[in-house]
Every structure is written in structure tokens, then in C-alpha cells.
């Protein structure tokens, strides 16, 4: 078997039950008294706190093994029950066994042949696949088969119907079976028949499911706590065991004294209740046992189950040291590889520094500074020193000097973070691998984590109060691995679609647009101001010398491009003209880069944007992560410089249009309304021509939606005529920074039809949407058309309809996120151990093949060009230069929708956009 790197392998896990003998055998002491401590505060022998059960008090020794507090893990005790009691955890199995075996002879209610056949079937399955789930199906089937029989095939006894009265009472045709009777019946089932039911009689006899002895967990499992007042407070489990012991005692006394049957039975049932709630205090059908204060007790099952249970909270979910969490804020002056860490966090998160001969002096010096050195700027100190013998010494201002003197090789000094340390940075929900990336520390004043805006998309972060986590790495291996594999610059290309996930957003795009659009030029002062932030750039020769020195934006941008970059593509602002005028484009939308010089075109979302940035894409592929990182860092600073230099703002007056235009829009709306009335009239008169494959009503709807869709477009166009590139909102929409022309036309023109499930609104009241309209009204207003714009304001009915449409979007996203979250969890659980091996196969930890060749083509999607292993067009262009363009179609295909950026749920305009475009596309496309 080819399992490499696995030193031990679990070949099987066997689950069995404890027999009463085993319970007594592993017991350190029998527990007989419900009292815990005597008057002097010493534990009572054979009580629940018997010192044989382990130690919880420091200084004492265990009476069983003689070890001290942290060395002895505790020992079980046991309680001998006066009468047998059903174990709640096994009622299902007990019911199955009672129903499928004979009430008089105990045999399984199957003939020998039937039983053998089931055994054979299961053996085959286990031998072939080892699939225990399937073999459990067979056990279930055989039990069902057996319980359907009414007479025993072995002794011909007639079988009575057995029912379960939840949680633990069994009845045989109404007559109650005591646990004792149940146990007797289970004892009668022969070993051979158990095999058929999937029970291994060697380790598990069914009568053990009815308890005669109860194990008492060690005191270490249920430690008592001493309150400030000096009173002792016992664990819930101990409380429950006290109850069990008390009732058990009374039951025994009454039984031995020959008390009336009724009293004994009552006590017996009480004992059953206490033991049931001892296991599970949320058993349905019985009231939960409560504390004196009224709080339900937390017993065994409650310790394990649910979000706060042992599994989800202590085993799957762990808390770690050396981590920090705080609010995030932006800082465009940081590199994408960096993260700004507040001083307070940097002094808390430490890096262990192993002292060697070479760094001994440095370590001593650092240690002597203490835990909070003062000084101009940030000076790192030391929190702890770990001596060679493993002792950890806390450094205080007082002992810093003395401890520092004792520092020698072999010590570990836990020093504060310094600039350049590698740490991990994370934002929940961690849905993809870019949710945790390695950053370099920059210790900074103030209290937030700060990072470059280009890194927002992979974390899906914004700064409206988002918090993020930071983890300090504690070993050289971890740091090395993080630096090589997890650094931000290694994740610029996404494995999801092979394009950039790290790139410009919002103002960064607006900035580069303002820098490079058409003939934008800057004076000497402006240029110097912009360039001073880009550290290693010198002032170039001005593009224009007379009458005044001017530097063109294209020239400045070209300075940060690699000298051998050749690219040709259409920018975001391209209007998709019928015939492209290429370099002569009046929108300056045709980007041409030759030898690293931007000859024409505007740098906007298509060039730099996250998800769409073609320049980023090409550079990441051809020049490697270091170069792109440098490029992004400089581009950020240039763009921020440009937008700061020009100034940029948007306000409600960006949607102002002249009153003439408003009148035109109103006219268009009236026209549309009349046209709709016309259609409705035709429909009512029966003159409407039915469309093929549609009912008359559907035809009408289609016609109306066409008219209304066109009306909104017209309104948008009229408004658009007055919204030029001098308008900030338009700049943002056109260059891809934020918003769309549709959003703008809804703000300035008309909002248009509201839809639920892709149809005009129709539900609400009897045959109408609102009581403001006549029954059966089909007109535009009555069915959710909004002729107003967001700016002009909505009428009451329009407002209501808008809320209806908006609500659908919200419900949609809520449903989608919860469902996709669940799907994601299931997927990750199934795939977590799958990896690509050296030989190109994809396997799990058992070495089982998942794919014979990774992705069937061995291509890493991160390095693929939108799914293809080779970018043929790029190769042709590289080899043939400009001539190649004739052969290679300028790649425009995939670029349109590289990856879909999830938009903010809180922004109604973006949901409106996607909803209307997808579901209600009656009037054809919007903007170019």
C-alpha cells in the first residue's frame, strides 16, 4: 500500500458497551452515600467526592494512584442500582430488539434460512467495501422483517405488539413492562441471533442496555468550585448523581422493608427519571431537572451537544494566542504586502527569538528595554523570556535589566513585532484561500489595522466598521512558508477565474482615469506633488515645454510601466461604436501600450480594476509577483495623487437636469401611459393580436412591458443628454469606479417598472395591488410602474411598489447566502483532505484516487488564461508585434465578465441593477 508520510493508520474503530461487570471492575470505589463532604470539609469515603476518584485540590494525592493534581486524570467509581433502569441512549435499540424477538423463547423472529441469508449479505458487503453504513441498512432490514411476524417460527408463541411510551416506558398491548422484565427478555436473546441484527455479542449484550450499575465519572470531570464566600459549589453532574444516590437508597430501603408495590414502583420511576436526566436533561417527554434557582441542569449530553458543546466549541473551534482583532481602515500609502498594526497590538503579539551566539548582544539589549520602552517613535521590547529549562519569566520594568544580564544562548526571547515581520491577516467569512494572506508588519500609531485598498476585494472588506484578525507566526518554518505561499503578492491572480482579484477599486480607478484621460496634463508643482509619494521616480522631461512646462498624465503613468510592455485593448469607457476608430477614438477608449509607453487610451477599470484589470493580468503572468506588486503600489500612489490634485466629489446636484428635460421626460411618460391604455383597450375589445405560444393575457403583459421598458430608456436617454463627463457621477459610472449609467438614469430620469418574480406587480388586494386602484386595473400606475426618479421623489403608491420590488431582492440574497454557506461547509468538509500529489494525481489522505490527472489537464487555474493553458493571442502578438493583430482578435471575449464582484447588500441601486437587467429586460440593453 502506498501511503507515504503516514506513520500510524487507524484500521478500524469498534464501538462496544460497558457490561455491569466491567463497570464494577474499572471502578475505584463503590459510591453508597449521597453526602459529599463532612463537617470539617473533608470528602466522605464512598461518597461522590471520594479521594479514590482523583484529585482536584492542589497539594493532595490521589488515593488510587498516588499522583498529584495534574498527573492523575481521575478514576471512575460506580453506583449499584437497587433496581434495573433503562438507559435513554439505547431505547431505540431496545425497542427494535423487543419487537424482533420472541416474547417467550427469545429467538429472533426469522427462520434459520432467512437469518443466514441476511448474515451472508452483510458479510459480503463488509468484505468488499467495508462500508458500515450499508451493512447497517441490512441490519435494519432484518429487524423490520422479523418484527412484522406475529408468531414465533421457533416456538409458535403468538407475539404481542410492543410500543414505546416516550421516553423510557415500554408497553405490550397496553400492559406496562418494567425495566426488569425488559432486561429478562433481552437476556433470553441468543448470541447467534444478535449477529443477524448487527450486534457483536462478544462485546455487547443487549441486556446491558438496561443498567444495573451506573458508572460515576471521576471528580476531575465534575470539579467543585469554592466561591469567594468560602462556600463550595458542586458541578451539575454531581448534583444529579446526588439525586440518583438518594432515590436509589430510598428505593432499596423500601424494597427491603417490603413496602407496598405502589410505593416501590413510584420510587423506581423516580430513579428512572433521575438517571434519564443524568444522561440527557433535554429528553423530550419529561420535564428537565432544574437547579434551585430554576436554571435547567447541564448534564452529560448537554456538555457535548450544540454550539457551546465540547465538539463544536472545544474540539472543532479553538482559540489561539498571539492573535489580535480590531477595526480596519484604509491607507493607500502602504504596499499591498503590508498591514498597519497599532502599537498596542504590536506590543502584545510577540515573536519568539531564539538566542544564539550571533544575536546574544542584540537579544540582551532588547530584553533590557522591558515590556514598554518609551522613546521617539516605536521601540520594540520584550514581554517574556523563556530559559533553557523551559521556565517562563515575565519581564517587567523592574526586572528587565537583571533578566537581560542572564540571557544566554538557548534562551528564547519573546520580542514585540517590528516592521517587516510576517503575520497572517484574515477576514471572516473565510470562504476562499485569499481570505487569509500573509502581510508584512508596519507598526503605526492609532488603533486600527490598515492596508492598501487594492486588497479589499479578496477579503471582501470595506471600512464601514469591519473588523479583521491578525495572527503572529511563532516559528521560522511557519514564517518561511507564509512568506512563500501566502504573501498578498502571490494571490494577485485568482485560482477561481485566472484573473486578478487584487486591483484598483472606486477612487483608485477614478484617479487613474483623471490622470490619463485624453490630454490631461499637470504643471511642474502638481507633477512633483504627485511623484513625491512614489519614492523612486525622478521628474522626467516635460512633455510640453512652451509656453509653460507641462507633464502629460499618460507620460507619468508610462513611467511605472515595464519598458517592454506591449498591450492593446479597449477601455471601460469604450462606447462599443459600430466601427472602432482605434487610436483616433474620440472617447480615448482605445488603449495602446508600446514599449512601456501609453500611446493612447485611458487607464480605467479595464486596465487596473480588480477582476477586470488587463494590465495587472498581463503583468502578473509575464513579469511575476514582485513586479506587479511594485506596479500596483506605485499606481495606487499615482492615482491617489491625481485625484487629490484635481479634487473629486459627487452630490445630489450631479443628477440635476434642466426643467426642459424634465418636461420632456414627463411627456414621454404620458405618451407611454397612453400607449399602455391603448393596448389594454385593444385587449378589452378583443382586438389584441395574440403572440405565438402565449395567451392573450401574456401577450398584453409583454406588449406593456415593452412599452414601459422603452419609456424608462427614453427617460434615461433624455437625462443622459445632460449628464456629460464633466459630471462626477458620470465619470464614476463610465470608468467603472462605482455605479452604472442605469443607476444614474434611475436617479435623474425614471425608475421604471418594479417587478416581483420577473412580472409586473399583481398581488395584494382582491384583483388589484392596492385599494387606490380599481379592481382589475391593468394600467401602468396600477401595476408598479414608477414614472418618477429617485431625485424627483416617489408618490405613495410608487413608494409601496418600490418596497415590494426591493423586498424580493433582500429575501433572495438572504436565502442565497444561508444556502450557499451550508453548501460551502459541506463541500469543504468533503474536500479538506484532497490534494494534488507529485505525480499529478488528486488523492485524499487514504491515497484513494479522486482524479487521475488534476483537472484532467494538469493546469493550475491560477496560471491559466481564463481556462486555457496558453494565451494564443498573446503569443501571436508577442511574436509578430502589431502585424499580429490582424491574426489575433484583440481579446475582448472573456474580459467582459472575468469574475463577478459581489456588491454590497446595503446598496439598493446595485440590486436594482442586477434584478432589472436579469429579470425584466423588456426594453433592451442600457448604456453601451
Amino acid at each position, binding site marked *: 500500500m502506498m501511503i507515504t508520510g503516514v506513520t500510524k493508520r487507524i484500521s478500524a474503530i469498534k464501538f462496544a458497551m460497558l457490561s455491569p461487570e466491567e463497570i464494577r471492575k474499572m471502578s475505584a470505589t463503590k459510591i453508597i452515600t449521597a453526602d459529599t463532604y463532612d463537617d470539617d470539609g473533608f470528602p466522605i469515603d464512598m461518597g461522590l467526592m471520594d479521594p479514590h476518584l482523583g484529585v482536584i485540590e492542589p497539594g493532595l494525592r490521589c488515593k488510587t494512584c498516588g499522583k498529584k493534581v495534574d498527573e492523575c486524570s481521575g478514576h471512575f467509581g460506580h453506583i449499584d442500582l437497587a433496581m434495573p433502569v433503562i438507559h435513554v441512549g439505547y431505547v431505540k435499540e431496545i425497542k427494535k430488539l423487543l419487537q424482533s424477538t420472541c416474547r417467550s423463547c427469545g429467538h429472533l423472529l426469522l427462520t434459520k434460512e432467512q437469518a443466514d441469508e441476511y448474515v451472508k449479505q452483510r458479510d459480503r458487503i463488509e468484505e468488499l467495501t467495508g462500508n458500515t453504513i450499508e451493512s447497517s441498512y441490512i441490519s435494519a432490514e432484518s429487524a423490520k422483517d422479523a418484527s412484522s411476524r406475529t408468531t414465533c417460527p421457533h416456538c409458535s408463541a403468538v407475539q404481542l405488539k410492543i410500543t414505546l411510551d416516550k421516553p423510557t416506558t415500554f408497553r405490550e398491548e397496553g400492559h406496562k413492562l418494567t425495566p426488569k422484565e425488559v432486561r429478562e427478555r433481552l437476556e433470553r436473546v441468543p448470541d447467534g441471533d444478535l449477529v443477524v441484527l448487527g450486534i457483536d455479542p462478544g462485546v455487547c449484550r443487549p441486556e446491558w442496555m438496561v443498567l444495573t450499575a451506573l458508572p460515576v465519572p471521576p471528580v476531575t470531570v465534575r470539579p467543585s468550585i469554592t466561591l469567594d464566600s468560602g462556600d463550595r459549589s458542586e458541578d451539575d453532574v454531581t448534583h444529579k448523581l446526588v439525586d440518583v444516590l438518594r432515590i436509589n437508597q430510598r428505593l432499596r430501603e423500601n424494597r427491603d422493608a417490603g413496602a407496598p408495590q405502589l410505593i416501590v414502583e413510584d420510587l423506581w420511576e423516580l430513579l428512572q427519571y433521575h438517571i434519564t436526566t443524568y444522561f440527557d436533561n433535554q429528553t423530550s417527554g419529561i420535564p428537565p431537572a432544574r437547579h434551585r434557582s430554576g436554571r435547567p441542569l447541564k448534564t452529560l449530553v448537554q456538555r457535548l451537544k450544540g454550539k457551546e458543546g465540547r465538539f463544536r466549541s472545544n474540539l472543532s473551534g479553538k482559540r489561539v494566542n498571539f492573535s489580535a482583532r480590531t477595526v480596519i481602515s484604509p491607507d493607500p500609502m502602504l504596499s499591498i504586502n503590508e498591514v498597519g498594526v497599532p502599537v498596542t497590538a504590536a506590543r502584545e503579539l510577540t515573536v519568539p527569538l531564539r538566542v544564539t551566539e550571533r544575536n546574544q548582544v542584540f537579544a540582551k539589549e532588547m530584553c533590557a528595554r522591558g515590556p514598554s520602552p518609551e522613546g521617539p517613535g516605536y521601540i520594540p521590547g520584550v514581554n517574556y523570556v523563556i530559559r533553557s529549562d523551559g521556565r517562563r519569566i515575565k519581564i517587567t520594568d523592574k526586572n528587565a535589566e537583571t533578566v537581560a544580564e542572564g540571557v544566554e544562548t538557548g534562551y528564547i526571547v519573546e520580542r514585540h513585532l517590528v516592521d517587516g515581520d510576517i503575520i497572517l491577516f484574515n477576514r471572516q467569512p473565510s470562504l476562499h484561500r485569499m481570505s487569509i494572506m500573509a502581510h508584512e508588519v508596519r507598526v503605526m500609531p492609532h488603533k486600527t489595522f490598515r492596508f492598501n485598498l487594492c486588497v479589499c476585494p479578496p477579503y471582501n472588506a470595506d471600512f464601514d466598521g469591519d473588523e479583521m484578525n491578525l495572527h503572529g507566526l511563532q516559528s521560522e518554518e511557519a514564517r518561511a512558508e507564509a512568506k512563500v505561499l501566502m504573501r498578498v503578492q502571490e494571490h494577485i491572480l485568482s485560482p477561481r477565474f485566472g484573473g486578478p482579484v487584487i486591483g484598483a477599486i472606486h477612487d483608485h480607478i477614478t484617479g487613474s482615469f483623471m490622470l490619463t484621460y485624453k490630454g490631461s496634463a499637470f504643471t511642474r508643482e502638481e507633477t512633483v506633488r504627485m511623484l513625491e509619494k512614489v519614492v523612486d521616480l525622478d521628474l522626467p522631461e516635460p512633455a510640453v515645454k512652451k509656453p509653460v512646462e507641462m507633464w502629460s498624465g499618460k507620460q507619468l503613468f508610462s513611467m511605472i510601466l515595464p519598458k517592454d510592455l506591449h498591450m492593446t485593448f479597449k477601455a471601460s469607457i469604450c462606447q462599443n461604436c459600430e466601427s472602432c476608430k482605434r487610436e483616433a477614438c474620440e472617447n480615448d477608449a482605445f488603449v495602446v501600450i508600446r514599449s512601456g509607453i501609453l500611446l493612447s487610451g485611458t487607464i480605467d477599470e479595464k486596465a487596473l480594476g480588480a477582476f477586470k484589470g488587463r494590465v495587472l493580468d498581463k503583468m502578473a503572468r509575464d513579469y511575476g509577483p514582485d513586479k506587479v506588486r511594485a506596479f500596483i503600489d506605485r499606481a495606487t500612489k499615482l492615482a491617489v495623487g491625481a485625484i487629490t490634485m484635481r479634487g473629486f466629489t459627487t452630490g445630489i446636484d450631479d443628477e440635476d437636469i434642466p426643467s426642459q428635460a424634465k418636461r420632456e421626460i414627463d411627456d414621454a411618460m404620458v405618451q407611454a401611459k397612453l400607449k399602455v391604455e391603448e393596448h389594454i383597450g385593444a385587449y378589452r375589445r378583443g382586438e389584441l393580436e395574440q403572440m405565438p405560444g402565449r395567451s392573450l393575457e401574456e401577450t398584453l403583459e409583454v406588449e406593456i412591458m415593452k412599452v414601459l421598458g422603452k419609456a424608462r430608456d427614453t427617460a434615461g436617454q433624455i437625462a443622459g443628454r445632460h449628464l456629460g463627463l464633466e459630471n462626477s457621477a458620470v465619470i464614476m459610472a463610465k470608468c467603472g469606479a462605482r455605479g452604472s449609467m442605469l443607476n444614474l438614469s434611475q436617479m435623474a430620469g425614471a425608475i421604471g417598472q418594479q417587478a416581483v418574480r420577473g412580472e409586473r406587480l399583481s398581488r395584494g388586494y382582491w384583483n388589484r395591488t392596492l385599494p387606490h386602484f380599481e379592481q382589475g386595473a391593468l394600467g401602468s400606475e396600477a401595476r408598479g410602474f414608477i414614472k418618477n426618479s429617485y431625485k424627483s421623489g416617489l408618490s405613495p403608491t410608487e413608494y409601496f411598489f418600490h418596497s415590494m420590488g426591493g423586498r424580493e431582492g433582500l429575501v433572495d440574497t438572504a436565502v442565497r447566502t444561508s444556502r450557499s454557506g451550508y453548501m460551502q461547509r459541506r463541500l469543504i468538509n468533503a474536500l479538506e483532505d484532497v490534494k494534488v500529489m507529485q505525480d499529478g494525481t488528486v488523492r485524499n489522505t487514504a491515497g484513494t484516487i479522486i482524479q487521475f490527472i488534476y483537472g484532467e489537464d494538469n*493546469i493550475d487555474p491560477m496560471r491559466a488564461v481564463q481556462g486555457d493553458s496558453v494565451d494564443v493571442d498573446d503569443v501571436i502578438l508577442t511574436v509578430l508585434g502589431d502585424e499580429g493583430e490582424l491574426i489575433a482578435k484583440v481579446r475582448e471575449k472573456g474580459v467582459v465578465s472575468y469574475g463577478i464582484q459581489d456588491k454590497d447588500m446595503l446598496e439598493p441601486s446595485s440590486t436594482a441593477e442586477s434584478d432589472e437587467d436579469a429579470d425584466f429586460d423588456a426594453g433592451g440593453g442600457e448604456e453601451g
Partner: protein
Amino acid sequence: MLLVSTVPRLWGDFEMVEESNVLEHELVPEHYVMPEKEVGKVLKQYGLTKDQLPKIRLSDPCILTLDAISGPVEEGMIIRIVRRSATSGMAVCYRLVIRG
């Protein structure tokens, strides 16, 4: 040729193909039973034991058809499957026949 009926008659008056060979359907990849000596080669190539291969059930329509056409297919045999692949054009994989 022996054909295995897998499509139930559902369409009443319409004429239905009663018997069909699933392997001839264009969406079903090619299935071949591998000769024993080639099996060893493949296992060696990937450094595998049989149980580490993906599985295919005896009751799989393709296995039933294969069984009818080219002799008995038994558990423990290895099936070579060749299918069209969106990424590489053609992909080969191997599956262990299991009961069920």
C-alpha cells in the same frame, strides 16, 4: 447484439425506443473491461492497490450492458473509462467494479 432495456415505457401512444444500449448514447463515455495484465501495469504506474481506485457498481447500467455484450463482468474487475473532457479533450480513468 444483446441489448439491455433501461428506459421504461412512459409515453402511451407515442412510439418509443424500447430497448437501447446505453453505451451508444453520446453522453455516456466509453467503458472497457481491462485485461488482467494491463490492470497490473496501471496499478503499478499509479502506485495503487485496487481499493484505492474509484468504484463502479455492478448494477450500473454501463456495467450491465458491458456484461451483456462482452461476457461476464465480475466484482474486482477494472473498467477503463474514456470520456470527453472540457479541459483536456479526452480523459482516461479507471474504476473498480464493486457489488451493489
